């Protein structure tokens, strides 16, 4: 659960994630465009990264939660965080959001072809199944991640697939870890200690 103290500022949060508040709060459902303009909304619709947010303004404390999952706070200082829209709980009002097309990356894991990016200065709250672990990536030290355990990443990272699909995989005798994301460059990747189900790459 996340407690946010507000002194007249605005935050944006997942629709329906408010569980309690005290003080004076105003909840406003964001329109279709979600603050990204008509073009942004169109991109989001095309990308299947649907995300319904609400704006919260007021004085007091608001408590946010979603399905008893863990909440991780990530401070952004002008950099960009890439996160699945389903893992986003709330963020400061002045942060900008958008959709980033990631190519084939999400195909196998049922997460679509795109991911949500959040940029600017402020706090982002993300959701994970179990406490998130941050893993650093530096040049020359690549990191491989199971797509089902991936939550978010930030920094200057190149992402690519590692596959060792061979004839055994086709026969159903694969290693079960045939597809991984590999991150290279400089940044931070967040993983969760659990694996999401779904997607076609259960091999």
């Amino acid at each position, binding site marked *: 659960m996340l407690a946010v103290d507000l002194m007249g500022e605005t935050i944006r949060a997942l629709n329906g994630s408010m569980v309690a508040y005290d003080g004076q709060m105003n909840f406003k459902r964001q329109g279709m465009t979600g603050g990204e303009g008509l073009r942004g909304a169109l991109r989001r619709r095309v990308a299947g990264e649907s995300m319904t947010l609400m704006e919260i303004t007021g004085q007091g404390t608001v408590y946010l939660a979603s399905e008893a999952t863990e909440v991780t706070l990530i401070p952004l200082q002008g950099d960009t965080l890439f996160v699945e829209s389903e893992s986003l709980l709330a963020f400061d009002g002045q942060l900008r959001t958008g959709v980033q097309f990631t190519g084939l990356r999400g195909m196998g894991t049922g997460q679509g072809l795109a991911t949500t990016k959040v940029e600017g200065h402020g706090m982002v709250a993300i959701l994970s199944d179990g406490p998130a672990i941050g893993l650093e990536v530096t040049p020359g030290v690549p*990191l491989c991640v199971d797509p089902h355990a991936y939550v978010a990443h930030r920094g200057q990272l190149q992402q690519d697939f590692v596959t060792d699909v061979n004839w055994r995989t086709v026969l159903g*005798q694969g290693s079960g870890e045939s597809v991984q994301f590999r991150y290279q460059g400089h940044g*931070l990747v967040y993983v969760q200690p659990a694996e999401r189900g779904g997607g076609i790459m259960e091999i």
Partner: protein
Amino acid sequence: MSTPTFNPATLPSNDNVNPYAFCVDLNGQWFTQKGKMIAYYGQIRFEALSAGPLDALVAAHFHSPLYAHDWIVAQGQGKLLLADRGFDVNSYDLDDGNLTVRAGNLLAFEPGLELKQSIIPGFLTLIGTGRFIAASNGPVHFVEPPIRVDPQALLGWADCPSPCHHYDHSYMRGALGVARSVFGIGGTSGEEHQFDFTGQGTVLMQSSETVADTNTMLRDLEGQIGMLGVGGLQRLQGVIQQRLAAERQ
């Protein structure tokens, strides 16, 4: 609250990263269950047990064809992070000992250990010296026999004889009880059947009745069908049809 961040140098070596994730300092080979790897640094390859070059290793350390499909070998050098559905994860050291653990809860083990199938369906026995990693839903409790435990809460046992089944007498008594025991139907409270441990040793229990994998029981039963003859199979077919008819009503 800030998220702990790690790099290959600061990740713990063969220790827990947090209660739900474990970091193996891989230098050689480890057996791991499929799909439990969440991330890794370094040069690590994952091979199915059927891969040719692994024949000698599998022949020496993996004596459970029933579960061979669920297991792979991670080999190479680097830091390997393992986790299982947000369950608590712990490592255990065996020193020339034996320990039996629920098949679905065993995440990984060192090749110093030998894996065998337990006589109790759904459990695997590790023999030898080395380290293994197991998951539990909630913290693990170590208790000493004599004790009776709920089958769902049982995680495993070490250095003591295999358990036997224990049924509450009062539950089996009377006309309804007979019907239950013969046809296996009627209401069950789930508490009339326990595993009974006697002798010296340690029993491992988890603080929940959530079983990691219900599939393993089925697989075990399937594995035992091979021991039946034609007559036995026909009888089993009859019993299954009877049960299915009862379920449909």
